[in-house]
Every structure is written in C-alpha cells, then in structure tokens.
C-alpha cells in the first residue's frame, strides 16, 4: 500500500518545502549580506561571459577573474567619484526645492478650481488632490531620506560586491560541482538537470533585466535632460531601478517626473507633456527593441502570477522583494516541475 509520502506530488512538495526552508534559513543567517550577495550573483551572471572570453584568449581561471575584478573596481571608482556625487547633488537640490514644489502643486490645484468655477462647475479639486498631496508629500520626503540612506549603504556595498564577484567568478563552478556531487546516485542527474534549467533561466533573466534597466536609465536621463526637467540623472536612475520590477515598475516610474513637472515654479503644460512623452518613448523603446532582444521568454510566467508575486514579495521584503519576486517565482516553478517529473518516474517504474 502506498503511504502518503510515496505520492509523487506530496513527495515533490515535501522536498520543495525543505529546499524553501533551507533557502529561508540561509537568507535569515546571511541577512546583513543579502543585498551584496544578490548583487554579486547578478554581476557574476553579467561578467561570466567576459571571464570566458578571457579564458578563450589563453588566460587561466584566476587571472581572468582578477582582470574582471580590476574592471569592477574601475567601475566602482568611477561610480563613487562621478555618478554618486552627481546623484547626491541632485538629491540635495531636490530636497531644498521640495517645499516650493508642494506649494506649486497647491497653486496648480487652486488654478484648476478657479478655472472650473469660471465655467460654473462647482467642483473642489482639493478634495481629491489634498489627500494625494499629503500622501505624496510624505512619500516624497521619505523617499529622499530613503534614497540618501541607500547611497550610504551603496558605498559599503560597492566595496564588498567586487570582492564577492571575484570569488564567484573564480570558484563558483568548483564549489557548485562539489555541492551537487553530494547528491545521492538516485537523484544526481535530476538534481543537475533542475540546476541546469534554473541557472540557464536565471542567467538569461538577470543579464536581460540588468541591460534593460541600464538602457532605460540612460534613455530616460537623456530624455529628461533634453526636456529641461530638474535632476534628470536622478530621475533617470530611479526610472531605471523601477524598471527592474515588471509591469508595476514602469507605472511607478511615471510618478516622480510628473510630480517634478507639475511642481515647476510656473505651470508649464509643455514640460508635463515632455515628462510623460519621455517615459512613454522610453517604454516604447523598451517594449519594441529591448524586451524582445534581451529578456523575451526568459521566464514563462502568467502576467497575473507576476503581478500577484510582486505585490506579495513587495509587502514582505520591500523594494528588493519586488525585484527578486520574478526570479524567485521562476526558480520555484522550475524546481517544482522538475521534482514532480522526477518523482513520477520513480513511482511508475
């Protein structure tokens, strides 16, 4: 007679739960280093092809990893010396202009009310705008503080991440082989097969999403600069980062530039239209050129699963949770499907 644990679905769910528990324990123990570790894995996925290329030129593992480390250090130095000060400066400018910005938004609301009253329409837009204004005001202030803290955290991360990435590029494959070789004979091939599928999907997704985010940051920064918006690099960076969140991110990315455009000292409908135009153009470039070229079919998940996943992960783990929601869901999907297939075969034969 079959016991409950002999059923393929129950067995695969049990093993999947154990994997999830192990992942949860690891995440808990490594909590302070989780962001540098995630970033290092993302950079590993991005720079591993470069390391392979250097090996093709005849360099050994350590030397190719060292050259990649040098490149990462160079990027970090450039980041610290050029991009960070630029972002910090634009943040300060934004912070000092914040009270004026909210005043301008209030004035805009009053003008709309007057315009409507002149046409005999008795409508008080402040009834709608006031709660939104107070909400966005606190959100805006919080965001500035949060972004400032993020810049400090990023400075620490900038030191750790290249180091972790170097060791990943040099030793990841041998460590992975040793870990997977510990699997018993019965599940050895299945374990490798699941790993192979997960790794391939994640590599595709991470490379794609990072390229997409970078392209979006550059396109929107240039667009906002040409449109004459305040703090274009900061707004572009925010748009690039938000683009890491599928579906929801591009919508959220529209909010900061529109608020900045609405809060201009003189009401300027052209500026508002330009801000919206930049975001829409960037999204068009993203959807027509970037997405099909770099991340199409990287994860086969239903849009509803993606949106629900993003909301749930975002609720529990914040912004980072929203970014890792898709890779985590795709990984779980592949592991569970692989386990179910493997367990079925075990029972049938």
């Amino acid at each position: 007679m079959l016991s409950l644990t002999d059923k393929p679905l129950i067995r695969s769910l049990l093993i999947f739960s154990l994997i999830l528990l192990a992942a949860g324990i690891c995440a808990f123990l490594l909590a302070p280093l989780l962001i540098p570790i995630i970033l290092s894995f993302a950079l590993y996925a991005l720079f591993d092809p470069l390391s392979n290329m250097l090996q093709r030129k005849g360099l050994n593992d350590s030397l190719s990893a060292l050259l990649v480390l040098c490149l990462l250090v160079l990027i970090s130095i450039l980041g610290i010396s050029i991009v960070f000060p630029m972002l910090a400066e634009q943040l300060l400018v934004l912070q000092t202009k914040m009270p004026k910005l909210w005043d301008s938004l209030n004035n805009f609301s009053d003008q709309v009310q007057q315009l409507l009253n002149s046409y005999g329409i008795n409508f008080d837009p402040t009834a709608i705008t006031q709660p939104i204004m107070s909400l966005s005001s606190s959100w805006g202030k919080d965001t500035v503080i949060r972004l400032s803290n993020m810049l400090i955290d990023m400075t620490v991360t900038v030191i750790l991440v290249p180091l972790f990435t170097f060791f990943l590029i040099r030793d990841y494959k041998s460590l992975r082989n040793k870990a997977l070789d510990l699997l018993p004979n019965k599940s050895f091939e299945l374990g490798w097969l699941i790993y192979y599928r997960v790794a391939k999907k994640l590599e595709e997704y991470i490379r794609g999403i990072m390229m997409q985010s970078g392209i979006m940051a550059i396109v929107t920064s240039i667009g906002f600069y040409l449109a004459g918006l305040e703090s274009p690099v900061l707004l572009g960076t925010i748009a690039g980062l938000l683009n890491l969140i599928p579906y929801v991110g591009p919508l959220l990315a529209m909010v900061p530039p529109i608020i900045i455009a609405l809060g201009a000292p003189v009401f300027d409908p052209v500026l508002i239209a330009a801000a919206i135009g930049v975001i829409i153009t960037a999204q068009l470039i993203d959807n027509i050129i970037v997405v099909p070229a770099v991340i199409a079919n990287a994860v086969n998940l239903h849009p509803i699963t993606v949106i629900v996943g993003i909301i749930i992960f975002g609720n529990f783990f914040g912004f980072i949770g929203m970014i890792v929601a898709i890779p985590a869901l795709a990984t779980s999907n592949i592991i569970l499907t692989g386990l179910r297939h493997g367990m079925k075969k075990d029972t049938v034969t």
Partner: protein
Amino acid sequence: MDKDNKHPLWENIFRHKDDRITEVCNLWSETPLFKGISKSYIRRLVKNMHPRLYTTDEIIFKTGDIGSGAVLIKSGEVAIKAGEKVLAVLTKGDFFGEVALVVDEARTADAVASTDCELIFFLRPDLEEWLHSSPKPGAQLMANISKVLAGRLRHANDMLAQKAAD
C-alpha cells in the same frame, strides 16, 4: 570496495588527484567523442566531470528519465537493458547516454550496474561551459557527437531493414 573507490566526501583531500584525472583523460581520448581533440583541452574538461560510485544491480538511469549527460565507465561493467532484455554489456572505457549531451529528451533504455563500478558523468552544463571557454575543440566535439549519433542511426536503420527482410 577497493581503497581507491572511496566516496568523494571522505577521500583524503591532500592526495594528489593528478593520476586519476590522467587516467580518465586517457580513457576519454580513446573514445570517438574526443577524436582530434588535444589532451590538454580534454584534461581541462575532465577536471570538472563527476565521478560516481555504483554498487552491483544499482540503477544508473531508467527508460523515460530525462538525461543530463554521457557516462564513461572507469571500472566495472554496466548492462544496457530494454525491459528484461540485455541489449549490451559495457566495460571499462566504453561510454553511453551521449544523446543527452545534445537534447533534453528521455532516456531510451535502462542502465544498470552489473558489478561495482566507477562512472564518470560528462554533463550538459560541463559541455556548455566548455564550449564557451574553448569553442574550437568544442566545435570538434560537437562534430564527433554528430558522427557517433549518425553511426547509431545507421545501425538502427540496418537492424530495422534486417527485421523487415526477415
């Protein structure tokens, strides 16, 4: 089990593994898969392959399992079966399961250890990583795999023709 066949986890980590790698490297280089590929390249690949120990009658894979790579016999014997019928008995230096190096499809026969044996698994991720870092010998290996698979196909066609003639 002889003293060389210890589980990888418990082996002496200070022991020089070079002899073992050289032996596996020699075995692979004599197979049609690695024909025309220099030993230095094979050696680099062998370092990342996966030695596994199987006891008598232990199942290596079953029909319908999704395969993830080819298997070389370093010691012992392996029976390839279709149901209860033994199709072939393979010994040291033979390899099987190479179809799984190129396609994500189910195994078409059972492989069972006839004696205690040590097998070397050459998996698809090893092949793909090697193709990225060493594309020239990688292309030669792919050509060799094609020749081996074409040979198997020709053999299967001959058998079918023979069966039809009978």
